[in-house]
């Protein structure tokens, strides 16, 4: 669905995106992860045609971005981090207006509003919406023309946990329906949960690209952390998950039934990001 080869771009003469190559398969959720200013948003702007003047090749939905026509935008849906909506119009009027820009068939406006819990507020002016409501409306606007390729920028930003869950389920449903999703985020937990593959972007280059599972496993084995009571106080110890049989203390505690707590502790995507890039995201 997306093929990028030797992509270079600079706002000035100095390169900002350097020699980037990757591909995104149809039906995949692909995440761009990186700190602010790393080049994630620039990359998304290049892939959606908001920025031009790149060298190399960037093909999305079968179109070289530099040679895109209007029909390219019939195939992609974009949701920016900050929802851009007509504040004086209602939610329904906003969807009607944006839907009227497309030639193809549209999804049911009310079904989409219902899917994000906005049907009851459909006739309220957007100016009266909370940040989360606007984010949900902006998200379904991107789905309205049933695009094959979705670009989502921080889709769960500003949402409460319940609505973030709804949004994530909708993103997964899009993937299951065969749509391709490009997700730009700082949120490692979202990326680990949603993305089939992620690319770590730092200083305009891809530092690592793999599935979240493989990236996490690359860091090494998980650990087992356990606690027990001794002399009236709680003590803790840890051992590698694949070395539990060799841990005499743990074996003794298991035999005596003296364990107070026991947890496996896997490295997170954030740990891996920190290790690979030397920078933390959250």
């Amino acid at each position, binding site marked *: 669905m997306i093929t990028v080869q030797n992509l270079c771009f600079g706002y000035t003469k100095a390169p900002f995106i350097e020699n980037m190559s990757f591909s995104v398969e149809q039906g995949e959720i692909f995440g761009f992860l990186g700190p602010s200013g790393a080049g994630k948003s620039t990359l998304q*702007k290049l892939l*959606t*045609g*908001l*920025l031009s003047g790149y060298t190399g090749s960037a093909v999305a939905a079968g179109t070289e971005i530099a040679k895109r026509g*209007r*029909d390219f*935008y*019939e195939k*992609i849906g*974009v949701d*920016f981090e*900050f*929802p*851009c*909506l*007509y*504040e*004086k*119009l209602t939610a329904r009027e906003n969807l009607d*207006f*944006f839907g*009227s*820009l*497309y*030639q193809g068939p549209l999804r049911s406006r009310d079904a989409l509003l219902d899917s994000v819990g906005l049907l009851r507020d459909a006739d309220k002016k957007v100016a009266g919406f909370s940040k989360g409501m606007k984010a949900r409306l902006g998200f379904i606007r991107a789905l309205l023309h049933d695009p094959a390729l979705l670009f989502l920028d921080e889709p769960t930003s500003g949402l409460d946990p319940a609505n973030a869950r709804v949004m994530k389920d909708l993103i997964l449903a899009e993937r299951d329906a065969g749509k391709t999703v490009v997700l730009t985020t700082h949120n490692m937990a979202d990326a680990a949960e949603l993305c089939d593959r992620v690319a770590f972007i730092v200083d305009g280059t891809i530092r690592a690209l793999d599935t979240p599972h493989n990236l996490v496993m690359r860091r090494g084995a998980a650990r087992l952390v356990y606690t027990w009571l001794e002399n009236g106080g709680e003590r803790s110890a840890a051992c590698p998950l694949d070395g539990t049989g060799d841990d005499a203390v743990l074996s003794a505690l298991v035999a005596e039934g003296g364990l107070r707590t026991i947890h496996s502790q896997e490295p997170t995507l954030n740990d891996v990001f920190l290790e690979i890039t030397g920078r933390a995201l959250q």
Partner: protein
Amino acid sequence: MTAAVASLRGFWAALRSDLMLFWVLPVPLLAAAALRLLLPLAEGWLTAYFQAGAVLAPYYLISDLLVAVVAPVLLAYVSVMVVLEERDDGLTRYLAVTPLGRGGYLLTRVFVPVLLGAAYTVPLLACLSLTRPAPWLILPLALSGGLSGAISALLVPAFAGNKVEGMALVKLSTLALTGLFLPFFLDGPLQYAAAFLPSFWMARLALDGQVFWLLPTVLTGLGWLWLLCRRFARKLI
């Protein structure tokens, strides 16, 4: 085409939702009618008072030139206000990733309103002008007014960072119309200091009544539009 029509409908809806902008629409007609009625009245009073053959009459053409630009320029300012609000709300960036695109946005927010302004000018000049320009001159003058309107429309969002800055720049952008007056008040080569403004050549076109002057009007106008469109397109995102 679908996107452009939808965008124009959106523009119309934005106008209707803002009464101040909506009521700008009849202003060119009212202004032209006021000039047509009041200037001859004032001329009668002034010539009687000063015992002169003519006081304002030699400058009636300036009034007609103002009538030629008032509709495109006012419609341009209306569209500027809509554009600035849409840009402040991030909508211009969003519309650029829809089938409307940046080109469609420019077309429907700048060029169509200005062309409508130029079309509005034709009956105004035909019915309410003081100098009764030759019929063949009305269309070139209306088109020249449209070019001036488009420049005013683009000058503001091309340089303003937000709506507040834009409202200040609207006043400054009227300087682009100073070329209308210079040929009437400056003799000799000095007046050509404004030759980079299409409004200057528009005044020459009206003064000399030679269609040849449409060429520099269009060329300077297109030069301005090319520069401003590039800057405006960059500022849309």
